[in-house]
């Protein structure tokens, strides 16, 4: 459970930690978008250089980013292999049945691989330098305009932050239940796929029961502390937009302009 790097905050102190989470959040999505603009070696190299620069700025050990690739390793391998073997080409190096291996295929597979690496590195960078609660705050702030159409933005934000708060607790709860079941002789690592899936039923049911009881306790505790319906509440956490955040946006726009030049038409 603790091997998942994607979606995990790493305490630290560098410029990237101090940027406004709203800016970071939006720019990460923006970057994922412009990755698809790159279409030649130069533009990919340029974006890679930018990502490496950002990683350097974050002062986070590069190993964490490599670990971020691990959960999607098979997906990358599969996609790259697909491009390598199925890209149609006029001058294939090697051809057998439906499989074609060519220089074009190699280049396209390389681009796809780069895309994965760029997108995963940049989103890992966001989650490593931004606490979950900051991300939930930025989502609230970005969704604010929806209040006009009666969308319960503050309630959804509170739901999100409580959900985030209870993830580690539920992980603990799961470990506890698994230990209890193991003590009664359940073996989670054995048997075929069906048998393994079946052995998770005795975990899920107690987990459901205990999450409902936690939810009930929490609701009572919240009500006793005066929580009504989310209206008329003030906010303790405030996000402050600073000059450096505007500068980051300008920097990203400059990056886009260079990227458009490097792009081949």
């Amino acid at each position: 459970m603790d091997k998942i790097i994607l979606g995990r905050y790493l305490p630290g102190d560098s410029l990237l930690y101090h940027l406004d989470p709203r800016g970071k959040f939006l720019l990460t999505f923006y970057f994922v978008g412009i990755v698809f603009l790159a279409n030649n070696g130069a533009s990919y190299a340029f974006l890679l250089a930018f990502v490496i620069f950002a990683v350097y700025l974050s002062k986070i050990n590069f190993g964490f980013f490599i670990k971020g690739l691990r959960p999607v390793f098979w997906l990358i391998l599969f996609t790259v292999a697909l491009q390598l073997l199925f890209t149609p080409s006029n001058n294939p190096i090697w051809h057998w049945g439906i499989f074609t291996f060519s220089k074009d295929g190699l280049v396209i597979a390389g681009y796809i691989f780069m895309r994965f690496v760029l997108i995963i590195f940049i989103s890992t960078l966001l989650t490593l330098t931004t606490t979950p609660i900051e991300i939930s705050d930025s989502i609230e702030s970005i969704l604010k305009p929806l209040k006009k159409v009666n969308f319960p933005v503050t309630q959804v934000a509170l739901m999100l932050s409580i959900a985030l708060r209870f993830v580690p607790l539920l992980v603990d709860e799961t470990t506890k239940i698994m230990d209890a079941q193991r003590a009664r002789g359940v073996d989670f690592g054995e048997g075929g796929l069906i048998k393994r899936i079946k052995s998770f039923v005795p975990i899920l049911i107690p987990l459901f029961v205990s999450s409902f009881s936690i939810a009930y306790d929490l609701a009572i505790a919240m009500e006793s502390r005066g929580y009504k319906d989310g209206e008329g509440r003030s906010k303790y956490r405030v996000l402050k937009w600073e000059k450096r955040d505007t500068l980051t946006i300008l920097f990203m726009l400059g990056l886009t302009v260079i990227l458009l030049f490097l792009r081949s038409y």
Partner: protein
Amino acid sequence: MEKIISIKNLTYTYPDSKTPAINDLSLDIYKNEWLSIVGKNGSGKSTLTKLIDGLIEADSGTIVIDGEVINEENIWDARTKIGIIFQNPDHQFVGATVEDDVAFGLENQGMPREQMVKEIDRALDLVKMSDFKTRDPQSLSGGQKQRVAIAGVLATKPQIVIMDESTSMLDPDGRKKVLDLVQKLRQEQDLTIISITHDIEETELSQRIVVINDGKIVQAGTPSSIYDIGPHLTKFGLEEPFSSQLVQTLRNSVKLPEGYLNEEELKEQLWKLHSSM
């Protein structure tokens, strides 16, 4: 003495039950006292807390808090006067960090941020948790989490603090720290403490004990008068305090003064016996 809570002929039956959880119960609670409500599991003590805070509605009877009869309209005002610390430290931690959690009650009141910052610092200082301000709950011990819960309650400046089995999940050291803290806060902040427990040993610091069984008050009095009836407590599903058990056994062989002796007094008596031998 000034009454802060006055309960009259309160009755409550859970929807799916035949016997009432609280049965025609009347009780007065005075300002600045520490009242312990003890009873075995299912005796109705936790139901009483929920009734006082208006989290469930009584079938009949009245509750007066700080001079006002509680009804649906003024329950939110009444709640600002009462703070509750619940049993499981993890199930009442709303915020992502210590400061966020303390802020929760203040945010609900719509307090401006500048004032909140001051109140949070004050409350965390009272429970000696200022150093942990930005920590997340996962990195705290059970006792520390309960102290944060107390800070969260104190931040809203209540007059009454109810501890609903708040120390039952803590280790002995954490329990002692929390109880001593509550005692100190009661004196300094002029609070009324209602502590609800099934552990008679936890009632030592209180001024008055009420024993509840089957939704009724069966015994009431000062701690020493309750401990005095030691063996009878087992009738209500409670355990006799350890020193009381020891005194009973010792009386078979040595002569000890009548009445309840706490640990210190017992030690004193044993030393006396030892030196006169």
